[in-house]
């Protein structure tokens, strides 16, 4: 329908230039991609790599030998995927205005989220439902935002998890600013535990000026911040090959701090590398860029149709690399989890989905009168007067109305 209306000639010309560029770009060596849990479920014992000129051993940060921990990582990812599916369904049923699915990125989000300490502070985009889960944010609170009945959803200070940022890349500046503030807090009160911020963004946002500015500042001030880029290969419909001529992780070199590419679908490697990066930042050695190499298995949002710009074949290629699948294979093959565990999880997910649905259906719209309380921190005579005016007006209707 709309495909026939595209000015195809222009696109073809663009594609020709682009494919030439990509062929050239192929000469740039791909960086090593850190991985401990292979797609076939085989787990390596240790993890080390050369980062910014020196060899780093990530093994101390790996928690791959603790079966309970592995199961809890799997549980988080499993519940998260169910949450994603139910939310997508709720959007299709007209209960949410929009939904931003994350299927495929569970490993990158749960791995990095679980690496955070209590005192660390996360700055999400609008897709970090998995990180929200690890920070203890009520999942229904997220849906309040997507139903359009709140401007935020949760108190960021309670969970050290900032509000979703819908403006691309703006949160990377916030994260650097907050990190610099933490730096100063530490100086005035050395008793505070060392802490860092983590800025989430995607391959698309990496093209925004805000990311550049924040990286310049972070490097200049050795700000305790970890830049966590989930390269899910697609900036809505633009492939990451168009967004960058060099692997994103290598951009860090130009700013003068370490950059690492990690298999974003390997939850264990992501967790270990993020732990290392956070420690690096907390200890005053400056920022780190992590490129979590992953794939957005579904649409950009529920308003997007990926079949218009990418081949089903591409998605199929990524399917065997699924973060849940490889951990499940590992758990089963090593006898670390039995059928009861998986069945119990399925039941838990079903309850979660039902509760979620009930929660969304019970959501009420905000009272317009509440808006007046959000203008100033303290009561303000003019706002009070306007509130009274509004109440008088509301009271002036002859019918019952829908609200008081």
């Amino acid at each position: 329908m709309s495909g026939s209306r595209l000015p195809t000639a222009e696109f073809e010309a663009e594609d020709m230039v682009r494919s030439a560029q990509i062929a050239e770009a192929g000469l740039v060596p791909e960086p090593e991609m850190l991985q401990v849990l292979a797609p076939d479920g085989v787990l390596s014992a240790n993890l080390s790599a050369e980062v910014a000129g020196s060899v780093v051993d990530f093994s101390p940060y790996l928690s791959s030998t603790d079966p309970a921990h592995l199961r809890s990582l799997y549980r988080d990812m499993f519940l998260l995927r169910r949450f994603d599916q139910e939310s997508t369904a709720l959007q299709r049923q007209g209960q949410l205005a929009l939904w931003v699915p994350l299927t495929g990125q569970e490993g990158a989000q749960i791995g990095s989220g679980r690496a955070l300490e209590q005192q660390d502070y996360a700055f999400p985009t609008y897709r970090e439902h998995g990180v929200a889960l690890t920070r203890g944010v009520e999942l229904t609170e997220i849906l309040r935002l997507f139903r359009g009945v709140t401007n935020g959803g949760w108190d960021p200070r309670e969970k050290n998890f900032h509000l979703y940022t819908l403006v691309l890349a703006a949160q990377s500046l916030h994260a650097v600013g907050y990190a610099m503030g933490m730096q100063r807090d530490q100086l005035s009160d050395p008793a505070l535990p060392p802490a860092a911020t983590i800025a989430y963004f995607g391959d698309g946002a990496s093209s925004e000026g805000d990311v550049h500015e924040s990286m310049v500042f972070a490097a200049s001030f050795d700000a305790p911040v970890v830049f966590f880029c989930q390269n899910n290969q697609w900036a809505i419909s633009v492939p990451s090959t168009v967004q960058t001529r060099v692997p994103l992780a290598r951009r860090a070199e130009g700013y003068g701090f370490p950059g690492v590419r990690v298999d974003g679908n390997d939850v264990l490697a992501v967790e270990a590398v993020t732990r290392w990066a956070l420690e690096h930042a907390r200890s005053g050695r400056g920022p780190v860029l992590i490129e979590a190499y992953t794939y957005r298995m579904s649409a950009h949002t529920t308003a997007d149709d990926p079949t218009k710009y990418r081949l089903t074949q591409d998605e199929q290629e990524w399917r065997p690399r699924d973060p849940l699948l490889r951990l499940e294979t590992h758990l089963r093959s090593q006898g670390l989890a039995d059928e009861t565990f998986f069945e119990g999880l399925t039941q838990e997910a079903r309850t979660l989905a039902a509760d979620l649905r009930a929660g969304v259906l019970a959501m009420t719209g905000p009272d317009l009168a509440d808006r007046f309380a959000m203008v100033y921190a303290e009561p303000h005579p003019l706002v009070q007067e306007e509130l009274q005016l509004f109440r008088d007006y509301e009271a002036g209707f002859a019918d019952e109305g829908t609200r008081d």
Partner: protein
Amino acid sequence: MTLNTFELPDVGEGLTEAEIVQWKVAAGATVAVNDVICEIETAKSIVELPSPFAGTVAELLVAEGVTIEVGTPIISVEDAVSGSPETPGDSSDGAPGPELPADEADGAVPVPDMPGEVATPAGGSAEPAPEPEPTPGPLVGTGPKADAVKRRPRKAQGPSPRTSEQQAGSPVGRPSTPPATIDAPPAQADLAPTAVRSDQVQKPGASLLDPINQLINRVLAKPPVRKAARDLGIDLADVPATGSTGEVTKQDLLSYQAQRDAEKDGADSFWKDPTRLGGGRVERIPVKGVRKATARAMVQSAFTAPHVSIFVDVDASRTMEFVKRLKASRDFEGIKVSPLLILAKAVIWAAARNPSVNATWAEDEIHVKHFMNLGIAAATPRGLMVPNIKEAQNLSLKELALAINELATTARAGKTQPAQMQGGTLTVTNIGALGIDTGTPIINPGEVAIVAFGTIKQKPWVLDGEVIPRWITTLGGSFDHRVVDGDLSARFMADVASILEEPALLLD
């Protein structure tokens, strides 16, 4: 057992409609929450819709291949007697169920019966439930919304002047249509806007140009006019409104329709119907009558009189004010007053100061006329005609207005007599009536000057160093250079322009 109805949601951001591509269930089928029930195609993509209800499909309300607006009920599902274990959330799902029929009724009320109409009627029916409702009905249409189709009634007496002022407009985006009035028969519902209107009448002045009203973009019109527009399939927003408070009058509607029909009649068949041309592709129209006379006169004029044309931009804001005052004055009651009247008066005034423009070239003599037979070019069913107003210099403003009206009416009716077209001394052509800015008119034979009056519209204008919107028009004039040289024509046009800029000069 409850019958739940699922309304087509907005599955994208701001989609207004979708086509049902395929049903995956049939009436009588058992569905669980999130079972795929159908596939729809929106402007963005093909999407599968999961069922929000568990139970038995009672009815598919829309056939495959049909495009429907967001908010239209598409399927009804009867609750299972007891919640199936597959969907524990369903029991709470059922609770809001009873609210849903209210939405359904809302959507089912045929919008044409609703009094009051929004500028874009297409969106009207797509608005089943107000968004900030405390009931957990679906959001459904989440994109841009049309206004509620009806205003909520206000209490009879504004308790304080403050509130009554606010009363003027229904709040922006304010949902209305309480369930109680939905079921009311149309006749009763029709009373609602009347009540609102009388409400407004109680507050003289304040509400006439209610800014909130303008905000919600409602086209003002009386109910019979609305009904007529609906019956004719005309969007009131397209009709130029001339009513005293900016409302679309019956006359506006009728003339809009006449114009539309005239355009349609010719346009539809123009390319497609060669048969009426007798098989050929070229239509032969005999040149005769007015067309022939016009052609001869124009050729004669254009090739014997050396034309010089000049133009001047004029700030006609004061003329517009003056016209407005005249319309309102008792003396001019019932008389059509237009800026053309002021221009005619200005031309007569300026001709007296520059007499050579009111003359005839007679080869070895120039005959300067000490009387003004003011020609007004008029489009008529028979072609262009230039009847003139005899002895226009002796007419008062009111008499001139009457004369112009009569001349125009006679011309339009095709009843202009040859005598009315003879003996003209100077012509005015009102090309602005069709929205044209200016042009180079051709002098009527036997005369030496013609003034073209462009459309008057608001444009940015520099006044005292500031750019402000003013009513601007362009005057164009053509002169026979054998009689009127550049200097004289410029002074004549400047004089005409000065009157349009300051009509009070006519008093001197």
